[in-house]
């Protein structure tokens, strides 16, 4: 467990990063519907990922309606790849 990133290890955050890793950008609405989290929960998780430098937040307006999109940063991509590698090592029984 020692080499698993604690920010990513939380299930909801891991899933947010995994969703972002498959595409270029995703908006708040999609994450909300895919993960079935409350708005507050989702915001808190995304904020934590943003603070860790794993997610980039892009705010814009659709007319007068605010629109928020998220992108995985290079650091986030690397951290996620490292996380899966570490998890695989643990599963294979080679991890510490």
């Amino acid at each position, binding site marked *: 467990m020692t080499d698993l990133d604690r920010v990513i290890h939380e299930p909801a955050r891991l899933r947010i990063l995994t969703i972002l*890793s498959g595409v*270029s950008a995703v908006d708040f609405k999609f994450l909300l519907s895919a993960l079935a*989290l409350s708005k507050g929960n989702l915001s808190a998780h995304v904020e934590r990922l943003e603070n860790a430098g794993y997610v980039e937040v892009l705010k814009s307006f659709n007319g007068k309606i605010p629109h928020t*999109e998220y992108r995985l940063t290079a650091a986030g991509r690397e951290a996620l790849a490292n996380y899966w590698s570490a998890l695989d090592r643990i599963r294979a029984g080679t991890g510490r």
Partner: protein
Amino acid sequence: MSPLPSTYKPSQTDDPREIAKWTRVYAQNRTLGVAVFLLIFLVLSAAIGGFSSGAERASHNGNTVMLAVCLSGLIVALAVLIYLSVPAWGFRRMGRIASALYAREGRVTVTRTWAPGRGRLVTGLGLGFGACLLASVLLGVWGYLPDRYMQPVSAVYMVPFLVMLTLLQRPAIGWITLLWPALYGLHAVLIVAGAPIVFLGTWSVLNMVIPTIGYGLLTSLLGHMFNRYALHSVKQLARTEPSGDDRREGGT
């Protein structure tokens, strides 16, 4: 694009790493906008045909009111058709239709890798396609191209055009789009081989409508079905029970 380690096996269907794949499949197959667009084209084509024959009959009978109505309708339908056929306007409109259709689900994008100089390639492709289309129509009108071979001849430029259109938009759209040119080409081969799939007389218009709009509709509907399946898979894999960490962070 997905940072999956080499030890990852795609067959692990309950693995959360599958979420990345299905999200991508979902984003690449939001094809319902194409179906709506093709239906609009079908309606416009039918309207143009209807107004043309209506105008011809009205002119023959000396009914000036009906002639004016039919000609006005014809001009409007043609103007809309031309507007939608210009890639810069039509594609933008199609994008808006797709966005509106999937608006409830939020926005997911896969950016296409648009290398410098591709704009000129797209323009060249469009002009080449237009020239080929015009040439085959003129050959048909002048009687050099029998109805029976209209579709096989059109496949010579239509199939590469549709394939290029898909390749140019990759990875923003999925491989399923290639089904359209594949079916179009197969249809042409079957006609040349003598298969009884050629419509004659008043139904001869279907020789072009089925491969162009019919296969396009079929492809976009299959794409949409794949999109639904992908969304279902994403939700199934991504929905988790709130953990203790969730509660500590002030969630419900």
